[in-house]
């Protein structure tokens, strides 16, 4: 019995791995880890690029909206100014017609 026990102990004693085995294992580990890091980096880069692109598009749209609004308000101002001037000149004509009618009407 004791003989069997000692035989088993001898067989199962901790032994240091061979140097070649260690090297291969470490190489395998580094190979499996590297793509994951690269993938994560690529994902972050893509996300950042997408966010930047979205921000740029949003900012451009906002600037465009502001410009459109400015142009629209300017056009509105010009329309009102044009109609005001038109009415002013019509008023001038009206005054002249009124004065003429008054001078032609006897007793006016």
């Amino acid at each position, binding site marked *: 019995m004791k003989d069997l026990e000692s035989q088993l102990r001898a067989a199962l004693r901790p032994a240091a791995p061979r140097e070649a085995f260690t090297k291969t294992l470490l190489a395998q580990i580094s190979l499996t880890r590297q793509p994951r890091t690269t993938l994560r980096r690529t994902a972050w880069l893509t996300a950042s690029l997408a966010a930047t692109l979205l921000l740029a598009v949003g900012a451009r749209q906002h600037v465009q909206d502001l410009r459109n*609004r400015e142009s629209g308000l300017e056009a509105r101002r010009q329309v009102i100014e044009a109609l005001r*001037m*038109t*009415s002013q*000149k*019509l*008023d*001038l004509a009206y005054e*002249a017609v009124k*004065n003429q009618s008054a001078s032609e009407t006897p007793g006016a």
Partner: protein
Amino acid sequence: MTQRISWLWLILLLPSLAWTAPNPRLLLPEFSALAQKATESVTITLDPSLLAMAGRFLDSNDPQDAATKEVLKGLQGIYVRSYTFDQDAAYRESDIDAVRNQLSAPGWNRLLETRSRKSHADVDIFIMTDKNQAIGLAIIASEPRQFTIVNIVGAIDLEKLHKLEGQFGVPKLDVDLQPAASSPKK
């Protein structure tokens, strides 16, 4: 063969027919020399796209804006040139001749001509009609220190323009604004 020649004539005549179609848009000169002399100058050029844009910024709940919006419907352009000077006779009548000449073209009718001795203001109102519908309006107002040219292009609803009374100070004209009743061309 005869039919073919007729078609050829028609095709050849079409561009000239289009060319003679009355155009309510006046070719307003630059007036650059006058603009330099003027103390104040107003240049307004509103083409259909700008009018549409302006219409989008008019508030229908505001009475003045709503009335303006109604007037703008059917308009294709508003063009204004106005120059104010700090002294009398700073401009010559010949400066406006280029515009007056265009108003003697077929299609234009003088609606009103006023000469005021009191204010020395001369106002000429011209209208262009097509099928009893006003399609163009031109106003030339000459005052001692100011001259203004207004050209409105498009289906002008004079009733709607009338409705602007009080909105922009448009007076109630005692003249008949119906195109059919307009006086013949000068």
